């Protein structure tokens, strides 16, 4: 079915349905209620981040999940993609198509260079090399290539690259929109739906990113099931045996690195297409770290893990950073005053700007108790249900446990 085996096709269709219905699923509470303010996540800005970071981590997973090479510099490609896209807006027009294409091409070239250097080493040394090279890119973007006084100004330094009215925009049409658009369809445009007291926003930009994410997800499934994917898994399993089997591991890992770098560039291009602004902070090493955390939290080496991981982190980042001391006081008002203040004082460090702390703890818990990430959590709960069902049937016989394939 659609070029996938039954199980993969089912997974792909499920993700497709979720992407289409996300504006509804993420807005479960009626407009204006306290719950809606807190937990509704169906607004364009956040939904765009869900799918764009989904693309980023799906690509990262092709490298890290399949080959086991842990890159600590993938944010560099995200940044390079962002800058490339904004340059297309400055030079050509606000159409997102050339912007996205250039983002992919430039990040592909950058990842070829960085990958060629970093892949001379394996393990921790590879990670350190990618980290160092990405920090170099960050510094280039932040100061060296962003200095208006020196004549070279590719990135506009700490202000960030943006489009000015004085920019040439050679291909700009007469009545073309002054915002990023896809052949006239403005990315910020939304269709507002009000059903009873519920409000839903169907955003053009979100759906463009969603369609692109589905395409990249499909491609990643095909790569996982291809001979190329098999070789990448073999690299992770036993490089020595692979080279004594007559296969050259370097081009395989380099291809994986470039493909995942291009995924990151695409994500960067889309970020700029949603909001035509690119800053160096996108390339900072903490951003690279976040990508790694998303991949591991979701379940590295699995198909759906990257989407779960990026969605989970973006969602909780959003909620936790919204909570402040006033809200905490409100929630805990049922407690005696002293206890309330004490508890708020403690929780204060975990919410708002301190959401990193909560995320860090969650990450540690997952790594310690669920090394397979959220996917493993799903599998274990599934296994629990199976056991209950077996017990209920009273068969007592062991089920035929078909051996699991490595890249499930």
């Amino acid at each position: 079915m659609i070029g996938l085996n039954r199980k993969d096709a089912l997974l792909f269709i499920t993700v497709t349905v979720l992407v289409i219905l996300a504006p509804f699923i993420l807005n479960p509470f009626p407009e204006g209620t306290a719950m809606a303010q807190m937990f509704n996540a169906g607004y364009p800005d956040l939904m765009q981040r869900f799918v764009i970071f989904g693309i980023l981590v799906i690509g990262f997973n092709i490298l890290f999940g399949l080959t086991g090479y842990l890159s600590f510099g993938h944010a560099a490609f995200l940044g390079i993609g962002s800058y490339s896209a904004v340059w297309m807006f400055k030079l050509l027009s606000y159409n997102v198509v050339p912007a996205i294409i250039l983002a992919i091409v430039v990040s592909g070239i950058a990842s070829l260079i960085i990958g060629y250097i970093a892949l001379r080493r394996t393990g921790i040394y590879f990670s350190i090399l990618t980290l160092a090279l990405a920090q170099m890119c960050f510094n280039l973007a932040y100061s060296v290539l962003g200095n208006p006084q020196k004549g070279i100004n590719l990135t506009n330094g700490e202000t960030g690259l943006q489009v000015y009215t004085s920019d040439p925009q050679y291909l700009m049409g007469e009545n073309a929109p002054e915002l990023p658009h896809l052949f006239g369809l403005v990315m910020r445009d939304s269709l507002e739906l009000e059903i009873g007291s519920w409000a839903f926003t169907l955003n053009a930009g979100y759906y463009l990113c969603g369609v692109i994410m589905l395409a990249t997800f499909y491609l990643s499934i095909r790569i996982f099931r291809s001979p190329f994917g098999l070789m990448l898994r073999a690299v992770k399993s036993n490089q020595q045996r692979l080279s004594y089997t007559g296969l050259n591991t370097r081009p395989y890992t380099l291809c994986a690195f470039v493909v995942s770098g291009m995924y990151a560039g695409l994500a960067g291009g889309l970020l700029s297409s949603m909001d035509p602004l690119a800053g160096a902070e996108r390339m900072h090493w903490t951003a690279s770290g976040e990508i790694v955390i998303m991949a591991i939290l979701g379940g590295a080496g699995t198909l759906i893990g990257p989407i779960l991981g990026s969605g989970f982190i973006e969602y909780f980042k959003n909620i936790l950073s919204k909570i402040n001391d006033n809200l905490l006081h409100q929630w805990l008002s049922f407690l005696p005053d002293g206890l309330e203040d004490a508890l708020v004082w403690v929780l204060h460090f975990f919410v708002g700007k301190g959401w990193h702390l909560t995320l860090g703890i969650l990450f540690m818990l997952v790594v310690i108790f669920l090394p397979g990430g959220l996917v493993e959590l799903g599998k274990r709960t599934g296994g629990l249900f199976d056991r209950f069902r077996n017990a209920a049937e009273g068969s007592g016989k062991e089920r035929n446990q078909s051996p699991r394939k490595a890249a499930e």
Partner: protein
Amino acid sequence: MGILEVKGVNKRFGGLRALADVNLTVAENSLHAIIGPNGAGKSTLLNCLVGKLVPDTGSVMFDGQSVLGQTPHEINQMGISRVFQTPEIFADLTVRENVMIPCFAKRDGTFRMRAIRKVDAEAEINEMAEKILVDVNMQDRIDHHAGSLSRGDKRRLEIAMCLVQRPRLLLLDEPTAGMARADTNRTIDLLKEIHANRDITVAIIEHDMHVVFSLAERITVLAQGSPLVEDTPDNIKGHPKVREAYLGEAH
């Protein structure tokens, strides 16, 4: 002239002379064993043959071509397969996938990017993999994780991975080390069967005399980095120099 010609090979590790002027000829389609006490240089010699080590001097010719300076994957593509002392397999992959990888290497060379085509759709490769697993009697384990196999099965899988490439020379490094007697005997039978039914030259490094004398057609005894004698098993058995090397009477 043999399929493998080693001439005047020397290898030093610092002050240690691991290989001293080794000359060795392995005849085509023979089953040749290299034996010797611990530290005789057996494994160093093997590593020089497969590109893991480069000898200081001397030449190693395989079928008229030099293997020196070639990488392990290039040497494999020339037709030399190696079985390791501890089985080197893809433990995270299934048995089927383990044997498919060498099939791809044989067909597609050292690198080919096929990222869209499905592994399941590669009928010819799947067939080759299934057939070789029948040959080594592992067809019932085809969907098992390779890492979950017993030691003996891992060894058989590794041999299958080498055989499916139809190498011209199969090198085995103590293939029965750490195996139970029953597994050892099964491996001996498998190697005998391979040698009888396929045009493969087999060179084996072995410690276990039982294995050597039940398999080899020719034996080279290595001691302190250089070949002591080379002869048929019957002549080796009673050879005074060999007893000397193993029991350490002289020197």
